[in-house]
Every structure is written in C-alpha cells, then in structure tokens.
C-alpha cells in the first residue's frame, strides 16, 4: 500500500485531516496511529489561541458546520511537547501552520525546521474561521508570496492547503506551485451558515462557518480534478472521505493520498479503518498496487 508523496514515503495513502484528530497522541491506545500513512496535526499559530466563543459546531445534512477559530497551544508547545512524542513512529508527521502574513508563516516554518521530526508541512492558507484566514487562498498573489516566504526557510516538503470557496481554484494552485509548494491539499471547508429562525440568530457564535463531511465530497472531488488538470500532483485530498471506496475515488481522480476528517468525529477509528479496508477493495478490482490506480481518470 506504500505511496510516495513529494518524496515522503507513506506506508499507505491514508492520513488524518488537520483539526479532526487533535495531535494524535492524546488518542492512543483508542486509536492505532501506527496503522496510518500520516498524521496531520491541528493548525498551530505563533501564539496560543483560545479560539471562538461557543457554540462552535452544528450538524447539517450529512455533515457539520464549524467555527472553532484555530484554538491551539501555539508553536512552542507544539515543538517542545508534542513533536517529541511523534518521533520514530511508522506514520509520517505533517505539521500544519497558519500565520497572519507571509513573514509570520515563514517564522513558523523556520521554527518547525529547527525542531526537526517533521516530514511535511501544510500551510493553512484557507481557514475560514479567523479574520483574513481565507485571503491567502482566494488571492493568487498572496498565496504565491506566502509559499515563497516559507520555501526560503526549509527543505521540508510544503503543501499549500486550498479553499474550495473560489470561482476557480486552478490559478491559486498554479501560484502556490510557483511559490515553491511541493504539493497541494484540497480542500479546506466550504463556507456555510445555519440559522435558528425562532431565535432569529445564527446557530454558531460566528455568523458563517466551515462545512465539512460527506456533504462536501463532490465539491472536493471537483476541486481535486481541477487542480490536477491545472498543475498535476502531488495532491492530498480531503472532503467527506469516510470509507475506502471514497478514498479510491479521489486517488483515481489524481490524489496521491487522502485525509480523513469529519468522519473521525463519528468514528474515531475511521482513518485506520479506511487504511485497513484498502487492500481487499483494490484486490476485488484486480489492482495489486495502489500506485497503478492513482491518477488513472482520463484528463478529458
């Protein structure tokens, strides 16, 4: 089941998505991290953040809205307390960072580079839950600038995490690659809203929030297809992936690996289940090596 993504060797193509699995270690032994291809940590920022006021989530048809607001313990705590606990394991470690501008992104990346023990870095250019968070991936120039600043700080593979909330993701993907991104993560959440008509109020403390779960899977698949046709791989796919069937749809469409997100809230063992189910599912279609499947959807 091994795949290689931007030179990172994964024992299988299944990762957990940022913000939906904590930092992983706090869930053992309920989950078996060593069965995953990789673990993407929740976004960390320069300083600890408390995040938004509750209510922060609301269930919607086949999914949920969230406006957590990047609650996290900060980069120092991540490097000092969490990263050491992830060393020397069977899965690959992906950090995910968000800054306020290109310089602060670059500083975060530089800190991770110094800390070591990080196999890949996801740049969260697309968090809908903080002021300015979406700008980096709705504006090609900004996306290029942020990625380029980070590129200058490290040789660790960089993945730009894109938003689906644009008319066309292709120019943003192109700009991120021009800035020096090794790969792209598609997608972050889709902007949405829920209203409690009796209270004449939003269901969440933030007016708008990010939609995730099976409801957005077709959108994610469409974005992966657009990005792959515009810039090729490698692509890490996220958006409603909950089963091995879902994962293979994305691999065929051009993703090199998939991330399981909201499905982990329903079933915390979803990522390891998806990984475990892949071999038999592939075998049932006569596919011996998962690499023979990746990107086999014709481009036109």
């Amino acid at each position: 089941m091994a795949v290689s993504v931007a030179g990172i060797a994964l024992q299988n193509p299944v990762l957990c998505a940022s913000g939906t699995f904590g930092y992983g270690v706090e869930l053992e032994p309920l989950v078996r991290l060593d069965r995953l291809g990789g673990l993407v940590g929740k976004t960390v920022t320069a300083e600890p953040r408390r995040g938004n006021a509750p209510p922060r989530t609301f269930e919607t048809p086949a999914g949920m809205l969230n406006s957590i607001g990047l609650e996290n313990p900060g980069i120092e705590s991540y490097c000092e307390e969490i990263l050491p606990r992830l060393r020397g394991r069977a899965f690959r470690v992906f950090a995910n960072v968000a800054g306020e501008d290109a310089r602060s992104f670059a500083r975060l990346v530089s800190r991770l580079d110094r800390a070591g023990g990080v196999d890949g870095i996801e740049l969260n250019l697309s968090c809908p839950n903080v002021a300015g968070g979406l700008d980096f991936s709705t504006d090609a120039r900004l996306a290029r600038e942020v990625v380029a600043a980070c590129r200058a700080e490290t040789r660790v593979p960089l993945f730009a995490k894109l938003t689906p909330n644009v008319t066309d993701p292709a120019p943003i993907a192109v700009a991120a690659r021009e800035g020096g991104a090794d790969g792209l993560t598609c997608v972050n959440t889709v902007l949405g809203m829920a209203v409690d008509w009796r209270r004449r109020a939003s269901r969440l403390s933030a007016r708008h929030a990010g939609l995730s779960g099976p409801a957005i899977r077709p959108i994610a698949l469409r974005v992966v297809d657009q990005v792959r046709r515009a810039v090729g791989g490698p692509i890490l796919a996220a958006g409603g992936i909950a089963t091995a069937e879902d994962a293979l749809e994305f691999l065929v469409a051009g993703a090199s690996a998939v991330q399981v997100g909201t499905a982990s809230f329903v079933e915390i063992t979803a990522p390891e289940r998806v990984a475990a189910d892949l071999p038999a599912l592939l075998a049932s279609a006569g596919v011996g090596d998962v690499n023979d499947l990746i990107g086999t959807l014709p481009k036109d």
Partner: protein
Amino acid sequence: MALTALRPEKVLLLECDVLDSREKAPGCRLLRLDLPEMAPRIEAGQFLHIRPAGVLTPYLRRPFSVYDVPASPRGAVDLLFTVIGSGTYALGSLRPGTRASVLGPLGRPFRFASDGAVSVLVAGGIGVAPFPDLAKKLIAAGSVPAKDIRAVLGARSRSLVFCREDFAALGVPCEVGTDDGSEGFHGNAVQLTARVLEGLRGQPVRIYGCGPEPMLRALQKLCVERKISGQLSIDRRMACGLGICRSCVVRVKDPAGPDWHFETVCREGPVFDTETLLW
C-alpha cells in the same frame, strides 16, 4: 489547551444490540443497550456518545448520561432522554433487534467522599438522568447512606417530573417542585433547594446539579453565596466526545490569577466545580 487526562485506555468504541426501548413517561424514552464490556467501567456522571449504527443521518453522535446500570440483565446500560430533535428522534426510534454505535464511557465523573455531608441532587427536568445512578453508587460505595441524600426534582409541570420512583426504591427522600404548581412546591428547582437547605440547617452539604443552563447558573450562585461545594453536570453541543474537535468548550477560571481558559465539556467535564466554572 493542555493535553489533559482523558484516559483513552478506558474508552471503548463498539456496536451493540438494542435490548429495549420504551416510553417511560410521555415524551421520555428509556433505551436499554447491551454493553457487557462497557457497563463495569462506568462511573456516576459519565456519559455515552451514541448514534444509530449504519446510517448517514443523523451524522454525529449524541451524548447521554448513564441513567442506570441495572443488576439484571447483566451488561445492560440504560439511557433516559426526551425527544427534542432529529438525533433524539432517531435514537428513540431504535427497537430491539436494531443496533447502536456507542463510544464511552466518557468524561470526568462526579466526585464523592464519605465525610458525613448530606448530598443534595438537584435536577431540572430530564437533567435528573444521571442522578438515580449517582444515588445508587453513593449508597453502594458505603460513602453516603440513603438518609443523607436528598433528591430535588424541578420541572415545568407535573408530567415532566421524572424518576421519583427510582429514588423511592433507593430509600432516598425526594422533593418535587413545579413551575406551574401542578405538583409539590410551587417554584423552581433552585428555590426548592434553598428550602431543603433550610431544613438541613447546621449540617454540611454537598450539591450536585444537572439541568438547563439558567437553572445551573442560579444553583451555582446559591452554592457560592452559601459557600457550599457544588458540582454541575453541564450540556454543550458535541461532535467528537474526545476533546479533539474543540466544539464543546466552556470557560473555566485559571488555577492561579484572574484569567480564564477553555475546557472541553466532553473531556475535562461534563462535571465542573461551582467555584471555577465561568460558562
């Protein structure tokens, strides 16, 4: 945000049979699940995070206090809930022969000590759900004799007072109050608690509360004013139940200094001390 003391080694994720589902009172359902592995691990005040097995809707789990771990049938766990929306409707529609997916036991339980204090269990409406099990465990642990427990049940109206018979069966004295005066004391649970405290004058008291947030805020005020130690089981919308999604946060006073931090109701709660809870 500290990576604090969930004990994941004690948590199980499994699918189980529905043993029974019935209307215990109008609008109030009892769901009996077959959980032989999980049942012995459950401490009073912990909750289970459940959903119907094998369906896409509702998508997320719903949290419910453990209402009872009956002696027979062995391995059964009972939940008690009112149907208020799509999740509780779907769970209330489960019947014997269908299956549920259960994550648990979750959360920090009620704490208790055998120090001679009278334990006053204050419930608003369906908030009574964790208290029969708490009373049972207080008594069984030899911590508190039944005569040193008081159940204070508040509800909008007579038909919404649940579980009187459970406390009667345990020999726990029970006081009922209704907002509309249709049964017992005419007033809310916190006013009734104040009356019960008068009757206990002089005796040390420990308060346990569960119910709607306005009631719990008033109860907290009462505890603080009278310097009574209190523990409140609180309700927040949840997704993961494991402290990772950060859905269910509540503000808690920092141990030192005037500042506050968020804690999760699913992991650091659902039981919080009245002294530190800022909502």
